[in-house]
């Protein structure tokens, strides 16, 4: 049986929606819940994770024939930790305030199961171009998910977006949304919405298939 050929576009797009790391695979929950209290923090964490995903994917793919099976996990972790360290320096060079806002979560990118998962499941078995596209798609999907959660939390919890006031002085902010529990609430809202849309899509596809079968019979 011939394997279905997956296009490069599909490799990129799957991370955005079909296999979204946060809303579908529910991976990387620690930063998704902890660093999404503002939109800018969410974007910065997403960008840092995307960089590590792409570069770790590229490196693992390039070295896939060089790394013995027995030493693969330690090698992948070493590569991922190196790029996380580079990102850490880069963020400090850009803004100390941003580095402090992201706190320990930059270093914790090393243990984000999303990155090791993509290295093991995809990059180690595919060519560098596809590994980078996969990492980029997953990274953008991760960033988008964090950003959506961050927007809800910042708007409701602080009454601002990117630090700009959105409401009149009388607006009572929902302080709970900037607290850790707010991360769970915002996450739940988005998971409900995403699952509802996916369910509708699945039903629509099922109905279209039935109609097509009736038409041909």
């Amino acid at each position, binding site marked *: 049986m011939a394997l279905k050929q997956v296009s490069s576009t599909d490799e990129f797009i799957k991370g955005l929606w079909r296999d979204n790391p946060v809303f579908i695979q529910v991976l990387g929950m620690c930063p998704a819940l*902890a660093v999404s209290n503002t939109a800018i923090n969410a974007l910065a964490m997403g960008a840092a994770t995307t960089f590590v995903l792409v570069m770790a994917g590229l490196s693992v793919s390039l*070295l896939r024939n*060089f*790394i*013995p*099976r*027995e*030493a693969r996990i*330690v*090698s992948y972790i*070493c*590569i991922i*930790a*190196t*790029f996380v*360290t*580079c990102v850490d*320096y*880069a963020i*400090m*060079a850009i*803004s*100390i*305030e941003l580095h402090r806002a992201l*706190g*320990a*979560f930059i*270093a914790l990118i090393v243990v984000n199961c999303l990155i090791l998962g993509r290295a093991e499941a995809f990059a180690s078995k595919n060519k560098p171009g596809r590994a980078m596209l996969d990492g980029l798609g997953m990274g953008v999907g991760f960033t988008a998910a964090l950003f959506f959660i961050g927007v809800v939390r910042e708007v409701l919890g602080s009454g601002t977006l990117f630090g700009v006031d959105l409401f009149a002085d009388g607006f009572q902010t929902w302080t709970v949304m900037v607290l*850790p529990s707010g991360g769970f609430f915002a996450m739940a809202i988005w998971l409900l919405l995403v699952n509802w849309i996916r369910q509708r899509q699945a039903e629509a596809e099922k109905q279209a298939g039935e109609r097509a079968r009736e038409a041909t019979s």
Partner: protein
Amino acid sequence: MNAPAPIQQKQTTTWEMYRSIVGIGAFCALLIVTVFQATEGRIADNKARFLSNAVAQVLPAARSTVEVALDSNGALVAATAPANLPVFLGYGENGELVGAVITAQGMGYADNITVLYSYSFDLEAIVGFKVLESKETPGLGDKVEIEPHFLANFEALDARLGGDGTALLNAIVTVKQGEKTEPWQLDGITGATITSDAIGVILNRGSGYWLPALERDARDFQPPQASEE
């Protein structure tokens, strides 16, 4: 019936293991050192600016500061080079001494915590506090930076010296949340016990080391050239 032949998996040699692990280690080390060299200057500039802003936050009355150090005799002198844990004297608009800002460091729960705090010579108390660097558990240990009741400790945390001026009259200690009875006690944080205890230890050690020299010499200290905030 013939049994299927077992799948032959290529045996990894010791050389291949060494080659891959040492090779990847060397590649990673090279990359980290290159990025570190490329960003070092910029990071130092950012840290200096951040420190300057932090000093202004903990000692808002200061219009200029002078970094000081202790000479081999323990006397207060102007620092000749920036220290890892700098100490500043703050001067007001008319050049009057308004306080000192001390940087101190100690072990927290996860890693070293570096804090900056201001000391008022008039009140003989710590009157400002800011965490400069911390890797404490998000949501727990990092409460020492935001918890209002903990920050309220620094409205005037007693740091008077004893009669001979060589040590604190009362050691600064952290007590359980809600059990503060003395002005030199830090009201701790339930759920961040180790971190809030660590802050007490850091302040006590930093103050015990610096305050005797500051109280003895700071008022007579002639600032060489104060830096504008």
